[in-house]
C-alpha cells in the first residue's frame, strides 16, 4: 500500500521533543569553559609555527617531557616535534629536549 499523505507530522513531533537537548559532558564543559579564562583558541590558517595548532596543543606534553627528563613523551609532543623539524630548517638538528623547551617557552 502506498499513501498520498506523509506521516511527517508524527515524525516532526518526535523530533522536536528531543531537539532541545545537550550532552551530559557538554553541559559540564560549557560551565567549566565559561569559568576558565586560560583556554585559547587558535586559527586553522596560521603561517607561523609558534601559533600553529599542533604546536600549541603540545604544551602540556612538552612540560611533562622537560620535567620528566624525557621519560614522559606524549603523542602531541611527537607530532609537534615532527612538524617543527619539517618546517623550521634551524630546528632540524636540534635535540628533542631543546625543541620541547622551545615549545614550553612559547
Amino acid at each position, binding site marked *: 500500500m502506498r499513501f498520498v499523505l506523509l506521516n511527517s507530522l508524527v515524525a516532526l513531533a*518526535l523530533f522536536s521533543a528531543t531537539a*532541545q*537537548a545537550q550532552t551530559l559532558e557538554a553541559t559540564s564543559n*560549557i560551565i567549566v569553559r565559561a569559568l576558565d579564562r586560560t583556554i585559547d583558541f587558535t586559527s586553522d590558517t596560521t603561517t*607561523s*609555527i609558534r601559533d600553529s595548532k599542533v604546536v600549541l596543543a603540545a604544551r602540556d606534553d612538552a612540560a611533562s617531557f622537560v*620535567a620528566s627528563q624525557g621519560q614522559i613523551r606524549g603523542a602531541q609532543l611527537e607530532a609537534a616535534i615532527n612538524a617543527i623539524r619539517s618546517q623550521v630548517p634551524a*630546528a632540524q638538528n636540534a635535540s628533542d629536549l631543546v625543541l620541547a623547551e622551545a615549545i*614550553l617557552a612559547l
Partner: protein
Amino acid sequence: MTWPRAWLLALALLASACSHAELRLALADTALSASERQASLQLLQEALDALPPHFKQQLDQRISVRWRNLPAEVYGRAGRLRGIELNAALLPALSDGSSATEQTSRAHGSVRRELLATVLHELTHLYDRARLWPLAQKQLQHQCRQRQQSLGAVGLPEHCRGQTARRFTLSDDPLLLDLAGWPQYVGRRGAREQNNHQVARSPDSYELSNPREFVAVNMEYFLLDPSYACRRPLLARYLSEHFAWSPANPQPCADGLAYLNAGRDFARQPLGSIDAQRVYQVDYLLAEANDVLASRWGHSMLRLVICAPGRPLGPDCRLDLQEHLVLSYRAFVGDVQLSSWDGLTGAYPSRLFVLPLAQVVEEYTKVELRSLASVPLKLERSQLEQLVTRAVEQHWSYDGDYWFLSNNCAVETLKLLRSGSQHPRLQALDSIMPNGLLDSLVARNLADRSVLDDDAEALRLGYRFDSFRDRYQAMFGVLQTQLPIEQAQVEDWLNLPAAQREPWFAQADLRTSAALLLLEQAALRRQLLLAQDELKRRYLSGRDGADPTLNQAGGALQQILANSGFLSRPAELLESGYGLPQRAEWQRLEAESQARQRQLRQLSDNLDQEVRTLLEPARLAELQATESNLTQLGQHLRALHKAAGGLQLP
C-alpha cells in the same frame, strides 16, 4: 496465401520473445477510454523501462493492473491475487496530461511521477514477496535450516544468523535490516529491534513503518532519483549489487561527506567534510572506566585517523592528530544533572557526535582524569571506507534512545561497526560493555591490541593517551627532589592556597618550573570543578525563582543548551532533501550553521561574563590567584629559557 502465414509467424515470434521469462504488466482496460488506455500503457511502459533487467527476468509473472476506487489517501496497492490497483481518482489527470505538471508536496514532484513511483513501489512488494533468492542464497538458507534442526538455535553457526526463516527476497536480509535501521538486539541471538531510529532526513517516513515498506520506498528513489546513490550510498550499493545493475545517468556526488563538528570552539565554522579515501585507519577508542555511574563501564568511541592534506596514506598519518576526528555516541540531557533513573529507562536520546580528537583527549585525560586506548581495527580498505560513509549517514539520520545497560555507547558502536564494515566476523558478536567489546574485537582478530604492548611507544605514537592523574603524581615527584617542600602527597600540594605555592616559583629551574606549571594547571582545574559544582547546586536549588541572581546566567546556560542541540542533530538545519546533503544544500547548510554558531558564541560570551559574578567571593579569589600563578610561571619559564639562550620558534 503467403500473407496470413507471415502474419501468424510474426505472432508466434512475439509470443516466444515473451515466453522467455519476463515480467508482463496487463492493463485491465475494458472500461477505459482510448486516451485513458494510452496514458496508462505509457505509464506502465515507463515503469518497466525503469526496472533492472534482473528484476524483470526473476519476477516472471503476468501482473494485472487496474484502476479502482480507493480511499482518497491511497495511491495504490498490490496483492498476489488482485495484482496492482491504482486509485481511479488520479486517472483523469493522467490521461489529460495535467498530472505531469501538477506538483505534490512529496519528494517525487509531480502527480505523474508519484504514479510512476507507485507502480514501482507495488511491483517491488510483489518482487519482495516472491522469494526470488539467488542460488547461493537458497543453498545457504537450506543449509542453515538443516543446521537449525540438528543443532538448535544455540549451536547455530554465525553466518546462519537471520537465515533460517527467510520469507522475503530483500526485506528480511540481515544486511538490509542493518542498513535500513532495524539492527540486532545485543545478546538475543539476532532478534531485531522493533523501532527504526533512522528518522531524520527520511525521504518518506512511511519507509519507517516496517522493512517491507522500507524496501519498496527505497526502490522508488533508487530507480527514479539520480541523486539516490549520493544520498544513501550504502543502500544504493546494496541494491546495485543485488540486481547487478545501476540506474543510468547518476548525478555526480558532492566531494566528501558533510558533517557538523560538535567541538566546543564556537568561533569556528562547524560544517566540515570527510573524504573517506583520506582515512588511513579507524581505531576503537576506549575511555577507561571510573566510579561515576555514567562512566562505570568506560566509553566506546571510534577514531578516524585522517591524513593531513598532501600526505600519502600511511603510518605517518597517525601523528596528524589535528586532522583526526572522533565518533562518539553520547546521551543527551537538557539539564545540568544526569538522572540515573532516566538513563536506565531510556529517556535520553542517543546521537552520533563528531568531535576533534584533541578535545576528546583533553576532556578525558585532563578533566575526567581517565586514560584512553586507541586500538586500530583490522579492516579491508573497502570495509573501512564503507564504515566511514555509514558513520556519516548515521550522523545525519539517527536519533536513538540511550539505555545505560542495553543500548549504551558500546552497543551503538557495535551496531555502527557491523552495519558499516559488513565484516562477517562482526555479525554474531554480542557485547554490551565497552571494555568487553574491545576484548571481543581482539579475540576475533578484528583489532590489533599489540600496539599497546610497549607502554612508552604507545604513548609516543598516540595509541594510548595517559590520564593526567599519573602525570601530576610524576610532577610532584620532581618537585620533591628539586625543592625542600614539606608536603608528602600531591593532594596536599594542590590543597595549599595559591598564595602559599607562589613563593617557590622564583627558585625553580627550568625542569622544576615545567613540573610546577602542570601542577598549577591541576590546581586550576580543581578550582574550576569546585566552582562548577557550587554553581550547579545553586542553580538547581534556585531554579524555581528563589534566587534571582542566578536568572541571567541560568538563562544563558539554558539557551546554550537549547541552541547547541543542532550540532548533534544536523538534520535540523535543513528542511529539504533526504539522506546525505548534496551540493545544492551545502550553501544553505553553511549559512545556517554559521548563524547558529554566531548565536552560540554570543551566548557563551554572555555566560563567561556572568558566571564569575555568581561565585562565592573566596572561591573567586582563589581562582584568580591560581590564574595569576600560571601567568607568573609562564613568564618565569620564558625568562629562564631566554637567559639560557634556548631555541626561539619562528
